[in-house]
C-alpha cells in the first residue's frame, strides 16, 4: 500500500512540469518582450473607441443630455443600463479574490490577478455613467457630503443614488488596494529582473521597496486577509445598493423586493462571463494555457450555470408576482411591456431570457463546459443577455408607467449614447492592454505557492515518497 500525496480527484492547477524559475519566465515573458502585432492592433482599436467615447461625452457635456434620445418619460436609458452592466461585470474579480480566498479555493490563483484588474477597469467604466449622465456634470461634487458654506447644505442621505456613490467608491478603493497589494511581490520580481535602468526605477517605485523579507510576507498575508474580509461583504453590498436605485422607487417593474439577491446573482453571472472572455484570449495570446487551464474554465462555467439559473428563477418569480399580486400596473409591466413578445420592447425581454436563462443550461454538460469555443461564445452571449436584463428593467418599466397619457414613443439610442458606451469599451480595453503589457497577468508568487501543492513538478517531486511503502511512512512519522 502506498500513500498518495496528490489528489486523485482534482485536476492539477498548473499543467506541465514547471520550476519556479520557469513560472517566472512564462508569466513575465509578455512584460519583458516586445508586444506582438496583435497587441498593437488591439490597443489601437481600443484607443480609437476611447476617443469616440471622449468625443461623445464632449458633445453631451457641451450641448446637453439632449444629445441622447432620452425623453420626459424615459429619464434613464443606455446610460444607467451601461452603468449597471459594468458594475455587474466588476463583481467577479473581487468575488474570485476575496470570497474564494477565504474559502481556500486554490484554483483562483490562475485567474485572480486578471479578474481583479478587470474589476477595477469595469468599475472605472461604470463610474463614467452616473457621472456623465448628470445634466450638470460640472457640479457633480455636490453629491459629496463635505462641509460647506451653503447653509450648511448636506446631501440627501435618503437617496439611493447617494448610497451608490458610497458603495461604488468604497468598492473601487478596496478592490484597487487588494489588487495592488497582491501585485507588489510580482512587481518586485519584475524590478529584480529589469534590464534597463528606467524599468528598474519605475518598477522599483511601484514595488514599494519589497525585498521579500519574512516580515514583508507576513504583512502582505495579513493585509490580504484583512482586505479579503473587507471585500467579501462589498461583493454583496455593491449590487444590492445598485438594485436599490430601482427597488426603492414607485415605478412598476422597479419597485420589487427581489432585486438585491437577483442583482447580485446577475452581477456574478456577468462578471464570470467577462472573465471567461478575457481569460480565453489572454491564455491564448500570451501562451499561458498551462496556468489558466481548462479546469479553471470549467470551474467558472459551473459558476455561470449556477448564477444563470438563479437569475432565471428571479425572472420567473417576477412574472409570477406580476400575476399573483393582481396589481394592474405591475401586471401590465411584466406581462405586456416585457413578456408579450409583440409589444414594442418584447424582443428585448425574450432576448434576455434566451441569453441568460436558456443558453447557459448547456453547461450542465461537462463536454460543453470544457469546450473553449462554446465557452467563449457563451461568455459573449451571457454578457449580451445581462445587458438586455438591465435595459429591460430600466426602459420597459419607465416607458409605460402609471399614466397612459405619458407613455413614451419608441426609444432607441443616439449615436452619442452608443459612442459613450463604446468609449467605455475603449477605456476598458485600453487599460486591459496596458495592464497585460506592463503587469503580470497571473499572480507569479501565488502560482509558485500553488505549485508546492499541485501540478506536475509536485507530482514528480512526490513520486519518490509515494513509492515508499506505507510502513515506512508510518515509521518515519511515528518517530516524530
Amino acid at each position: 500500500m502506498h500513500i498518495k500525496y496528490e489528489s486523485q480527484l482534482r485536476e492539477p492547477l498548473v499543467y506541465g512540469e514547471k520550476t519556479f524559475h520557469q513560472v517566472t519566465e512564462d508569466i513575465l515573458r509578455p512584460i519583458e518582450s516586445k508586444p506582438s502585432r496583435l497587441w498593437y492592433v488591439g490597443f489601437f482599436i481600443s484607443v480609437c473607441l476611447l476617443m469616440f467615447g471622449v468625443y461623445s461625452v464632449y458633445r453631451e457635456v457641451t450641448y446637453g443630455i439632449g444629445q441622447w434620445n432620452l425623453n420626459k418619460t424615459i429619464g434613464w436609458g443606455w446610460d444607467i443600463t451601461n452603468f449597471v452592466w459594468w458594475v455587474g461585470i466588476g463583481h467577479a474579480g473581487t468575488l474570485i479574490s476575496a470570497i474564494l480566498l477565504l474559502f481556500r479555493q486554490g484554483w483562483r490563483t490562475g485567474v485572480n490577478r486578471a479578474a481583479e484588474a478587470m474589476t477595477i477597469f469595469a468599475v472605472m467604466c461604470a463610474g463614467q455613467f452616473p457621472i456623465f449622465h448628470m445634466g450638470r456634470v460640472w457640479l457633480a461634487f455636490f453629491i459629496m457630503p463635505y462641509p460647506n458654506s451653503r447653509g450648511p447644505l448636506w446631501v440627501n442621505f435618503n437617496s439611493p443614488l447617494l448610497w451608490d456613490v458610497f458603495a461604488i467608491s468604497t468598492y473601487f478603493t478596496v478592490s484597487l488596494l487588494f489588487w495592488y497589494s497582491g501585485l507588489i511581490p510580482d512587481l518586485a520580481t519584475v524590478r529584480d529582473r529589469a534590464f534597463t535602468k528606467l524599468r528598474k526605477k519605475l518598477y522599483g517605485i511601484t514595488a514599494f521597496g519589497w525585498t521579500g523579507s519574512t516580515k514583508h510576507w507576513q504583512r502582505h498575508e495579513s493585509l490580504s486577509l484583512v482586505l479579503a474580509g473587507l471585500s467579501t461583504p462589498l461583493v454583496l453590498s455593491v449590487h444590492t445598493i445598485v438594485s436599490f436605485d430601482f427597488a426603492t422607487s414607485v415605478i412598476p417593474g422597479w419597485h420589487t423586493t427581489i432585486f438585491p439577491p437577483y442583482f447580485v446573482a446577475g452581477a456574478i453571472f456577468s462578471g464570470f462571463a467577462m472573465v471567461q472572455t478575457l481569460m480565453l484570449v489572454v491564455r491564448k495570446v500570451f501562451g499561458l494555457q498551462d496556468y489558466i487551464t481548462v479546469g479553471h474554465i470549467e470551474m467558472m462555467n459551473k459558476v455561470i450555470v449556477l448564477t444563470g439559473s438563479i437569475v432565471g428563477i428571479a425572472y420567473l418569480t417576477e412574472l409570477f408576482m406580476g400575476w399573483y399580486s393582481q396589481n394592474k400596473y405591475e401586471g401590465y409591466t411584466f406581462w405586456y411591456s416585457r413578456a408579450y413578445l409583440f409589444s414594442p420592447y418584447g424582443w428585448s425581454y425574450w432576448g434576455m431570457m434566451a441569453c441568460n436563462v436558456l443558453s447557459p443550461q448547456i453547461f450542465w454538460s461537462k463536454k460543453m463546459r470544457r469546450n473553449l469555443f462554446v465557452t467563449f461564445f457563451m461568455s459573449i452571449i451571457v454578457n449580451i443577455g445581462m445587458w438586455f436584463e438591465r435595459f429591460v428593467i430600466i426602459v420597459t418599466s419607465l416607458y409605460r408607467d402609471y399614466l397612459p397619457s405619458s407613455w413614451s414613443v419608441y426609444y432607441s439610442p443616439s449615436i452619442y449614447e452608443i459612442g459613450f458606451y463604446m468609449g467605455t469599451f475603449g477605456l476598458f480595453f485600453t487599460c486591459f492592454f496596458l495592464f497585460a503589457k506592463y503587469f503580470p497577468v497571473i499572480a507569479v508568487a501565488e502560482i509558485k505557492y500553488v505549485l508546492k501543492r499541485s501540478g506536475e513538478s509536485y507530482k514528480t517531486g512526490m513520486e519518490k515518497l509515494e513509492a515508499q511503502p506505507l510502513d515506512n511512512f508510518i515509521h518515519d512519522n511515528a518517530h516524530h
Partner: protein
Amino acid sequence: MEQKKHWQSFGELNNSEAFNAEVQNEFKEELPFVEDESTLEKGGSFLQAKAPRRDFLKYLGFSTAAAAVAASCEMPIKKAIPFANKPEDLVPGISDYYATTYVQDGDVISVLAKVRDGRPIKLEGNDLSPLTNGGTSARVQAAVLDLYDTARLRFPLMSGKEASFENIDKAIAAELNGAAVIVTSSITSPSTKAVIAQFLAKHPGSKHVTYDAVSHSSMLLANEACYGKRVLPSYQFDKAKAVVSLSADFLGTWLNPVEFAKQYATGKKLNEKTPAMSKHVHFETVASLTGSNADQKYTCRPSEIGAIAAGLLSAVKGQPITGINDVKLKEGIAVAADALIGNKNAALVVAGSNDVNVQIIVNAINDAIGANGNTINFGVTVNYRQGIDSDFATVVDDMNAGKINTVLFYGANPVYSWPQADKVKSGLAKVKTSISFNAKLDETTALCKYVLPAPHFLESWGDAEPAAGYYTFLQPTISPLFKTRPFEDSLLKWSGDATDFTTYLKNEWSRKLGSETAWNKTLQAGVLNPTSVPTAGASLNGAAVANALAVVAASKPNTTIELALYQKIGIGAGQGASNPWLQELPDPVTRATWDNYIIVSPSMARTLLNIDLNNAGQADDYEVHPPKKVVKLTVDGKSIELPVLIIPGTHPQTVGIALGYGRAEAVGKAVIGTGKNAFPLACIENGTVHFNCTNVTLSVTGETYPVALTQTHFRYDTAQGTRTEVVKEITLAEYKKNPTEILEEREAETKPYGGLEKYEAQGTIYPVYERPGIKWGMSVDLNSCNGCGACVVACNAENNVAVVGKPEVLRGHEMHWLRIDKYFSGDMDNPNVVFQPLMCQHCDNAPCENVCPVAATNHSSEGLNQMTYNRCIGTRYCANNCPFKVRRFNWSDYSGADSFPDNQEGIVNDVVINMSDDLTRMVLNPDVTVRSRGVIEKCSFCVQRLQEGKLKAKKDSRPFEDGDIKVACQQSCPTNAISFGNANDKHSAITKVRVENPNRSFYVLEQLHVLPNVTYLAKVRNSDEHEAAHEASNEKEAEKKA
C-alpha cells in the same frame, strides 16, 4: 544529514554588512516623515524634522494660489442701468396692471396687461367684463409674445423698400383719387368704423368690405332671410338646459368661445346635493373640442348636417324623421329632440355649417323650441364676425376686371385664406395702389405696394364693441417698439383730418361719457357695460324655412369620402401660426403640435392604412413611432399630401384637415416647415365659402412624415385592468343612483390600509407629520374643464416655460409644466372623452423628493414640492420616480441661459434660438428664474404669486386670504375649473370645493400613498348610457375574483 545553507540573496550568502544591517532593521519601525535620520540619532524627536512640514506648506501655498488664479478667470459682465430719472409711479419689481383689450380680427377679449418695468409680460382676463368675466383663451395668453415677435415689420415699405411715413403719405395723396376699397377683417371698434366712414365719405364711390377668413356669412344671411336683420344674436348657453350642436365648435373656435365656455360650464357644474346638469348632444363630423365635451355625440358626414337639421326640426315638431337612414343618427336626432322638447324655452341649437339653408332650418328649430328670446337674444347682437363671403368675391372679380384702382387691406389676408387665392393675386396685380396695414409681411401684405406697419394691440389706443352696448377699451402698455402707425391715423390723415386717432378717441369718448374724467375712469376699468341688458326675440319668416327645407330635401345623400376643414383652438385661421407658444400648444383633440395633418377615423385607418387600433400590436406600432403614413388627398382637382392621424370620434367616411398652416415664412420662424395650407381645398358655392367637400379621394403615398405628438396613448384600460385610479368618470344617471360610487371605489382602493380615513397614517411606516399654517391645495373640476388649453399657455407665459420646437417635441422633450391629458373610454369608433389637466401634484409624500441625491427638490412648510434649480445636478431620478410624469428636464439649452456659450446653434431649431433673441426675451417674467440646461423643472404652484400674495397680506398686517392670489392657470381658465388656496383655511375656496364635493373628489393614483395636494372632481356625463369602460372593468374584476 549535512546542514545545507539556504540563502535568499547574495547578501545573505556572503554575510555582507549591508545585509546584516537590514536584518537588524527588519522589524524596526521608522517614522516616515524623517528625511534626515541624524535628527533622531541626536536624540531629537521627529517633530523637529522641519523639512517635510515646510515642504507641505510650500505645496499648500502654491496649490492654493494656483487654484485662486485659475478660478478668477474673468466672467462676462452684463450691466444693468438704473433710471436716470425714475418715472413716477414706477417701482422696479412691482407690476402695474392696465386694463386693455385683446383684439384680433373679430375676436375681442377684455384683459388686464401685467406691465413690469415698462414692458407687458402677461395678459390676464378682466373680471369686469360680463361677457368673459375674466376668462381668456390660449390665443389671448399667447398674444403678448406677438408683441415681441422678431418678424414684425420695423418700418414702412414702399414698393418693397424702406420709406418714411411722410413719403408714403405724399405718394398716396397723389395716387388716391377716385374710389377705394377697404378690405378689413371684422371691425368691432365703433371709432374705427367712424374713421372708415369718414374716409369713405371723403372718397366717394369707395366702399368697405369685411372679409373673414372663416366667415359666418351663412348665419348672417340666414338671419336676414328669417328675421330681416343681417345680424348675429347673442347666445346664452348658461340659460340652456339642453344644447344641440350640429358640429359647431362653440367651445373652441365658433364666434366667441371664451364667452360660450364660461356660460356652458355653468350648466356643467354639479351640485352634489341636487345633481342636475345641462345636456349637450353633439353631431360630429371630425372629432372636435366641443364634441369631446358632449354628453352624447353622434358622428355624421358634413353633407348630412342639412338632413339632420331638417330631421331635428321634424322631431321637435313631433313629425316623423325623414331623409336619414342611419339608425344611430336617427336615434341621435330622437335623443336631441327629446332633450330640446323637454327643456322648451331653455334649449338651444347651434350649427357650424356655412350653408345658409342649414342655418335657416336651425333658426326654425330654435324658434320651435322657444330659444328665440330666451337662449338667443336678438336684443344684444354680436359683432365678432361681420363678413359676407360674396361681398369679397365681388371685390376679387372687380379687381380682376380692373375696376378697382386702390385697395386697402387691414387685418385681412385673402392671398392666404381665400380659397381662390390665385384670383386674388392676379387681381391684386391689376390694382394700381395697394396698401396694407399689417404688423407683419404676410401673404397679402407682401404683394402690396405700400406697407404701413400696424402696432400691436398692446401698443395701441382703441375701443371695441364685441356685443351691442358692451364696450371695451385699448390703451397702450408700452411705447411702440417699431416705426408703426395705427390704421386709423392713416385713414384720418388721408381723409384730411389732422387729429390723430388717440385724440380722436379721447374726444369722442369724453363727449359720449360727459367728461374727460369719466373717460379716464372708464379706461381704468377697461370696459363699459350696459346698465340693463335688452332681450328681444325675432319673428321667423316661415317662407324662408320652407324654401330651405325643400333645398335640403332635394339634395341627394352622398356616399363618397368627405372632407371637413376645421380650425384649431390655437392656430385659428392662421393668426396663431407664427406664435411659438401656440404652435407648441398641443391641440386638445389630437395632442399634436407644430403641424396639420389628415384626421381619419379608426375604421378608415383599417381600410386605408391597414392599421387596426383594436389590435394591440398594430396600435403600439402606430403609437410609438412618430413618423405617420402620408396620404395624398385629392378633391376637385386640388390635392394635398399630409400625414394621417387616427382620431376616434371621427365619422368613418369623413376626414379632417386643420386650416391655418402653411403660412409664408415672412410671418415668423415658427411657421417654417409646419403644415400645409388647406384653404385652397375649400370651395365657393353660391358666393359662400364652404369648408366641407365631397368626392374626396385618398391614396397612400408610401412616405412617412413625423408628427410631434405630446401624448400617444389615450386609453386607460389595459388587458390587466382599467386604470380607474388615473381618471374617474361616471354618468349622471349612475351618480343619481349611487352618489357615493366614486367614494366607495376609493375606499376599496385604500382598504388594505384601513380605508380612506386611516390611509394617510396606515399607508406608511413613517410617522405622520402635522402640517400647520398654510397648506396649498388645488382642485380641478373635470366637469368644467373643456380642454381648451388657455391654462397651458398662461403657464408658459407666467413661468417662462421654454419653447423647444418640433424636433424636440418629437423626441418627447416638451417643457410644459401643465398639460391636458386626454382619455378615451368606451367604443373606440365613438368614444367618450375626458380631459384632465395635470400639473405637479405637490405630493405630501413625494416620491421625487427622497430620491434626489443632492436634495434639490424638497418640501416647503406650506406643502409645496419645490425645485431648487441651483442645486440640481440633473440625475433625472426624480422625473423617473414621478408617477405623474410632470417633471421636465432641460435637455438642451432651450432658454439661452446656459453658461456654455454658443451651444444652441445646430442643436435646437431656429424657433428656439429666436426665443432667446433680445427682443423676444422681453416677454420673460423677471420673477421666475430662467432655467438653464441640465436641470429639472416643474410646476411650482406659481410660487412667485404665492409670495407676492403673502407679502401683500403681511404689508396690510392681516392673515393671508383667498383673494390675495390666483395662480396663472386658475386665472386664465374661462370655466373656473381650477380652484386654489390654503387648504388649512376652513373658509377658503379650495376647502369649500373639497367639502362640498366629497362624492366626486379623488386623487390621481391615490393608492400609491404619495398624498397629492391636487384633488380632481370626477367627470360626470349627462347621458343614459352606461360607462362602458367602467362597467367592463368591474365585470372583469368580478370575473377574476370568481
